[in-house]
């Protein structure tokens, strides 16, 4: 390129005008979505709130105030414990499900995935109903049994928070490690077996070491999860006055006037930790996104555990289904059907009033349901379109430096939701935008947050489509855009649909990224539940939560049916490509 003069470059651009138009629009969009909010956080963090002058006063306040230090330490404690426990549970769980003849493997897998799609703050709600010190049913039952005055559990503690965060983080570790076990080539193990190694020896010397990167990556992801969760600590720690970084950030916004500049500086520790950990993860995985150890066949040899060990394994494997799904779901459903939580589950206490209220009588819940569906639908669509175009530009290297676009689109993955929320608030509620309270603000925040998922899905899909298919179209006279729309886009269809669902589902359960951005008119289900919980009407909150959970699960099930069929078709096309 360097040898071309400016006029030559102009000649090149004018030959490909549509291409450069699209590229320019994409660059501007990415800058607005990602760089702009982040830029404001940086700018705000180094400026004085009152004088608007460059200053480190915000950082000085954080470093000099013990009350601002404590939440950071608390966050680190929670994050480390969550990573520790979810690895401790997730790794053996993955091994049991993927590599042994433990009974109930399908059930455990399904329930762990159910825990995965459950918003963890709703899980926290369920556990409040079960283990709040006075009214929690487990405590009431315990006190009735033992006539003791002391509650068995207190969920409003660090321990309670770590417990709830961990059980909802296990699915991350589990799915990473399980897919490493699932996709490991059976030949690698057979090679050891033919050399005389027994099954257990093979497991210890071949299988587990090969899956080790997945353990580490699982640990890192759980750490980030523990560090960035907002809903669970807000529900479980705020009542006792204990704060973590995310809840402290929320507090800055609830002050009057809100401490936006201080909040920006306070985001930095979170950003540094998540950014650093993602960097480590990248080093561990190299450029691979997933931990796979390739091989031809996907058969697996299962270890026979023996009659007793099978059931010991089963009991262990049921920890997550019971604590993350059965118990909290049961509590939420029973409370939502009760006149009053405190009266306990009984026939006298039964009522459908809360559902009638949530679904028919209350305008707020109706509006929030519609908002959730519409915003998630629009944001998933816009996100997939943007992600696809970026993936296409950077995969096909449409200009030198195209990879930078991919990096920009991936960047939100390292930004905790609550930090993005801070950034979007600063960037888009002031002139010239003034989007505060608009649906637009909520939607673009969702798009930015989940752009990395959309982008990586689209990249995977495009990698499966040979560039020759587009070149063939161009050589018979189709322009670049026509070739993309007639050839590439239709071939990407199934991949894009499953990508769309992978964006849609997490948007439905997302709380932290929009917590500062919604107004009463733009509330979504998650923010509404969060706000109602402050009102203390647990029966209504439970009913609303059950509606959200049921809705999400139905969508996931439909998606599985739909994408399951689609992926068969994709496979057919892909095998064709390989053969040709």
């Amino acid at each position: 390129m360097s040898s071309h003069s400016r006029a030559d470059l102009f000649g090149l651009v004018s030959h490909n005008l549509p291409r450069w138009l699209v590229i320019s629009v994409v660059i501007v969009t990415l800058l607005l979505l990602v760089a702009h909010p982040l830029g404001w956080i940086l700018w705000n963090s180094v400026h004085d709130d009152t004088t608007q002058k460059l200053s480190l006063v915000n950082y000085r306040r954080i470093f000099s105030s013990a009350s601002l230090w404590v939440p950071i330490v608390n966050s680190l404690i929670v994050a480390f414990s969550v990573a520790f426990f979810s690895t401790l549970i997730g790794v053996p769980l993955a091994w049991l499900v993927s590599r042994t003849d433990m009974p109930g493997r399908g059930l455990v897998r399904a329930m762990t995935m159910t825990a995965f799609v459950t918003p963890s703050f709703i899980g926290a709600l369920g556990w409040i109903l079960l283990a709040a010190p006075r009214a929690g049913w487990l405590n009431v039952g315990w006190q009735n049994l033992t006539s003791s005055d002391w509650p068995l559990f207190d969920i409003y503690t660090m321990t309670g928070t770590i417990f709830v965060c961990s059980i909802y983080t296990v699915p991350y570790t589990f799915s990473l490690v399980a897919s490493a076990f699932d996709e490991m080539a059976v030949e690698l193990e057979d090679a050891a077996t033919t050399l005389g190694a027994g099954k257990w020896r093979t497991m210890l010397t071949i299988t587990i070491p090969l899956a080790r990167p997945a353990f580490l990556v699982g640990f890192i992801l759980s750490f980030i999860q523990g560090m960035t969760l907002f809903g669970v600590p807000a529900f479980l720690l705020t009542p006792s006055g204990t704060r973590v970084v995310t809840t402290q950030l929320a507090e800055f916004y609830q002050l009057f006037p809100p401490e936006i500049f201080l909040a920006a500086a306070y985001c930095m520790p979170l950003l540094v930790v998540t950014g650093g950990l993602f960097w480590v993860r990248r080093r561990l995985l190299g450029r691979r996104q997933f931990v796979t150890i390739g091989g031809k066949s996907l058969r697996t040899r299962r270890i026979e555990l023996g009659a007793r060990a099978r059931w010991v394994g089963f009991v262990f494997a049921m920890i997550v289904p019971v604590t993350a799904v059965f118990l909290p779901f049961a509590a939420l459903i029973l409370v939502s059907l009760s006149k009053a939580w405190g009266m306990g589950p009984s026939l006298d206490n039964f009522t459908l009033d809360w559902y009638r209220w949530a679904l028919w009588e209350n305008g707020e819940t109706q509006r929030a349901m519609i908002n959730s569906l519409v915003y998630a639908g629009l944001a998933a669509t816009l996100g997939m379109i943007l992600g696809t175009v970026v993936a296409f530009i950077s995969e096909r290297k449409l200009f030198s430096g195209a990879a930078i676009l991919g990096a920009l689109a991936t960047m939100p993955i390292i930004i905790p939701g609550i930090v993005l929320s801070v950034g979007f608030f600063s960037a888009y509620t002031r002139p010239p935008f003034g989007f505060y309270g608009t649906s637009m603000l909520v939607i673009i925040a969702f798009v930015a947050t989940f752009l990395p998922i959309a982008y990586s899905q689209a990249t995977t899909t495009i990698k499966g489509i040979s560039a020759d298919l587009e070149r063939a179209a161009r050589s018979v006279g189709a322009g670049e855009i026509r070739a993309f729309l007639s050839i590439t886009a239709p071939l990407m269809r199934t991949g894009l649909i499953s990508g769309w669902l992978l964006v849609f589902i997490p948007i439905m359960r997302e709380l932290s990224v929009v917590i500062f951005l919604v107004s009463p008119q733009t509330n979504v289900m998650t923010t509404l539940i969060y706000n109602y919980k402050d009102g203390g009407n647990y029966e209504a909150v439970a009913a609303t939560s059950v509606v959200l959970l049921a809705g999400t699960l139905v969508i996931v099930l439909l998606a599985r049916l739909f994408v399951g069929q689609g992926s068969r078709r994709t496979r057919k096309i892909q095998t064709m490509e390989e053969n040709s």
Partner: protein
Amino acid sequence: MSGIRIKELSKSFGNFQALRNLTLDLEDGQLLALLGPSGCGKSTTLQMLAGFEMPTSGEIWTGDRLLSSPTSVIPPEKRGASLVFQNYAVWPHMTVADNVAFGLKVKRLSRNDVREGTMAALNAVRLGPLADRYPSEMSGGQQQRIALARALAVQPEILLLDEPLSNLDAALRDEMRFEIRRVHDEMGITTVYVTHDQSEALVTADRIAVMKDGELQQFDSPTEVFERPKNEFVAGFIGKNNIVPGVSAGKSAIRIGDRVIRGQDTNDVSEGGGAILAIRPTKTRLHDGNSLPAGLENGLPATVIRSAYLGETRDILAELTTGTTMRVMVPPEQQPAPGDQVMLELPADQCRIMAKG
């Protein structure tokens, strides 16, 4: 008219020079084969002809139209050059007919014209009856014919074929190369055919450009390339050749050990300079004993090392006194055994003498 003129075309990728100063002239309606081992620059040349790569220097012209130069490249869709890919690149989500019709629809032809053009192209490659099938239901050879029909349907000025047969099995490959030549003869489209297979090039091409390491080695008709290779590389690459090193012994002569062999010079080698002699195993003759029968010349004494019976011929490997081995195809009646002393006769009109590679 749409011949192709390539002028001093070069292409570098970073520090790697893929193509150096290629100059070629192809007349309208001719079929050119770009032939060479992988990495020789033939595919890079084709990608530049198709407009997917930009030259580092040099120009590509068709008639009086400048297609490519370092400052301007007419985009692929506006060149009138259809490309057929090694991996077929047929679109799996379209029927055979839709694949072929695509280029005609892009041209906004009427429905009737699209239908007629499609059927004509499909009939040209004998796929008419399969128009409504999906490509995934068809064999590799049929898929490659879809790709060919798709490229032909738009009536391109230039047809570009990028190793179109190398994914097919041997029997199909034999059949398809005649098919490509037949279609070319019927339509008379100027064609550039990239291949690493010399027999494909010999069968299909009017002109062959042999390439190596980004440089043109020889640009000639198939007969010339086969019978009068210009240098050691071409002699070794096209067909089987014995390459025997020696020293130039004046015009049209080479000294091998203590013998002087007469032949035909293909380039001038100064006396005493390193030279090689190239002769095909089928043209070499073998005589028993230590001397040639009376009246024959150009003999080299040798020892038989290996004798293999191939049915129609016998494949003999013999070692010269200089240590060089030569292969000789003899009639099966001749039965020299390993260890036998023989005389190899190299008929002067079959010997090519050229500078050492």
